[in-house]
């Protein structure tokens, strides 16, 4: 039997005493794309943040096993070195930090972690210029400060560009589709689809079914009030489109 990339078991968490996650169970195998859908406030972004290691959450129960390790015991940078990647819902502008310098620093940390030699500035530039084309991003982005003065669409594309460079084993896309026009959505989706391999996995968090026309998931989970209330194949997203969150949540909640 295959080993999962990540296994989330009964994960519960609160923020300042307010319970946000109430026992999440989710197992993802290599080669799979999972989508998590849910209304605002259902806990989608909290789950993404906890998996990436953001401060400010209190884990009250459960565990996350990633590549045989206790993921929650690792620092964010250790998780990233192990291949966890979060595409931010709101990428941060960092004035004064050059994009290429920043990305090379991250990339070389991962190489160091894997016992590979670091790339110098010129080697790295050659490498990233290929990746820039994939996301149809202007090359001058590499000379600009990280996300600084980028449009909303550029920021989201930049997230996927970073994902292309860092080649994660497990990528979490937190509402990467929000605020994108259809052209940008196609570029981003195409980037994500290109990066899919048999030995990695993706967790796509979205509010809208629209994204799943472009990134076709193997599994769809509906998250509500800190729990996964329904799981299924990609057809679940279509069903959700018809019934809406309210319809589905009531239907699942009633018999319980």
């Amino acid at each position, binding site marked *: 039997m295959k080993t999962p990339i990540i296994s989330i078991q009964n994960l519960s968490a609160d923020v300042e005493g307010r319970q946000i996650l109430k026992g999440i169970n989710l197992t993802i195998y290599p080669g799979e794309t999972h989508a998590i859908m849910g209304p605002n406030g259902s806990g989608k972004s909290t789950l993404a943040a906890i998996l*990436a*290691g*953001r*401060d400010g959450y209190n884990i009250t129960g459960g565990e996350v096993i990633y590549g045989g390790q206790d993921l929650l015991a690792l*620092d*964010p*940078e250790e*998780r*990233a*070195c192990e291949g966890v*990647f*979060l595409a*931010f819902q709101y*990428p*941060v502008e*960092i*004035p*004064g*930090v050059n994009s290429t310098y*920043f*990305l090379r*620093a*991250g*990339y070389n*940390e*991962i190489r160091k*972690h894997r016992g590979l030699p670091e790339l110098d500035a010129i080697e790295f530039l050659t490498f990233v210029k290929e990746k820039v084309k994939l996301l149809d991003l202007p090359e001058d982005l590499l000379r600009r*400060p*990280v996300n600084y003065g980028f449009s909303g669409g550029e920021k989201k594309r930049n997230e996927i560009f*970073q994902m292309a460079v*860092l080649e994660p084993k497990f990528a979490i896309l937190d509402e990467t589709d929000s605020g994108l026009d259809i052209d940008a959505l196609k570029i981003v989706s195409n980037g994500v689809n290109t990066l899919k391999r048999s030995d990695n996995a993706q967790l796509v968090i979205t509010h809208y079914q629209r994204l799943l026309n472009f990134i076709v998931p193997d599994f769809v989970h509906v998250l509500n009030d800190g729990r996964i209330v329904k799981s299924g194949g990609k057809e679940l997203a279509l069903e959700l489109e018809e019934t809406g969150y309210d319809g589905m949540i009531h239907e699942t909640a009633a018999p319980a």
Partner: protein
Amino acid sequence: MNINENKPNVALANRVLDLSFNGKEQGSSESNADEPAWLLSDREVGRARFAELGLPTLRDEDWRFTNVAPIAKMEFKPALKREPHGVTKKELKQFPFTALAGCQLVFVNGQFAPELSSLTELPEGVKVMSLADALATEPALVEPHLCRHARTDTNSFTALNTAFFQDGAFIYVPAGQAVAEPIQLRFVSTAKDHGATAHPRNLIVAERDSQVTVIESYVSLSKATYFTNSVTELVAGENAVVEHLKFQDENQQSFHLGTLAAHCGRTSNVVTHSIALGAKLSRTNIYATLAGEGLECVLNGLYLTRAEQLADHYMIVDHAKPHGESHEYFNGILADKSKGVFHGRILVRPDAQKTDAKQTNKNLLLSDVATANTKPQLEIYADDVKCTHGATLGQLDDECIFYLRSRSIPLEKARRMLIQAFAGEIIERIRCVAVREDLDRLVWDRLEQNQQITVNP
């Protein structure tokens, strides 16, 4: 009634004047005798103004956050003549920018040191010399500008400088000439006595269509508590392009008062940088008069303080004519119990329609007990203008740190990257590449020495 009883600062001023005069008489009483009459009269005005204004106190609105009482207690011992100083060219190599090509004038304790200076070949008509020499040989170039731009009526330190300056630099770039390499003025203190005082005075004149870069460094080979009170007058003629940088890295016991009065002509482009790293107490005054239409003026600054240092930047940008653009960018990185002060006043006169003035002051506090005081002041008398200001103070942004860490960059490195970036925002505005690189390294070394970086805020 003794007026001094009510105004203790004036009593102090008289004491300072007495001390300065005494020194003068003991030294070379004839030193000013061959100066032109107009200068002697300006000096007299300076003395009178200083006696009248006294030293500022905390009650003075422009000095609310900076207490100069420790300066007032000093002995004010002027260095009156060119004395043997024992400084070698090799010793100077420890200071930044010394490897740069171009003219370098060196002053030791305020006195010109020709043996340490190097004068490279300059384009025709360009003059770089000591101000004392210029007063003797080029009075016609000096007279229209010296003491005409730095006001003595509102700034008692400028008044004091005007009364007692001995020397400094004179730079003259005639119309249409461009000087490729930066011209450097390096003021070195070797003061052995506590209370040693120098009043350097510089005049930079860039005539129309000319271009020049000038770097003023104030550095220290001394461990004494000394006082530098410099004044630089900068005149940018019509369409002139001038880059000016003041680098202040005096020793941690010293006091530094530095004033720049810039007069900018029509469609000129003037950028001045102030990098303040040293001194126990430093105050940089920048008065920029935007005297012509359609010009651009940038005031850019970085201050790094630690221990009990105080770095104060005070500026007035005076928009007198239409279509002027001014930008002020000042970032401070404050550690330990140190203090940063920023006071930026933008004045838009009735004539100055279509003014575009921006001001930002950002402070990064690396400790819980560091202090930043920031005071923007907009005074607008025209109705069709764009003026903005913003000030921030805070610690490193947690969200930025998390973003970097989520891309594999370790916490410590993430922190350093952000601090460096904060300084880099200012340093990257320096146009001269060699200067920028030197400063980048230097500022980084200073930050690395600062152990506060590694302490969790």
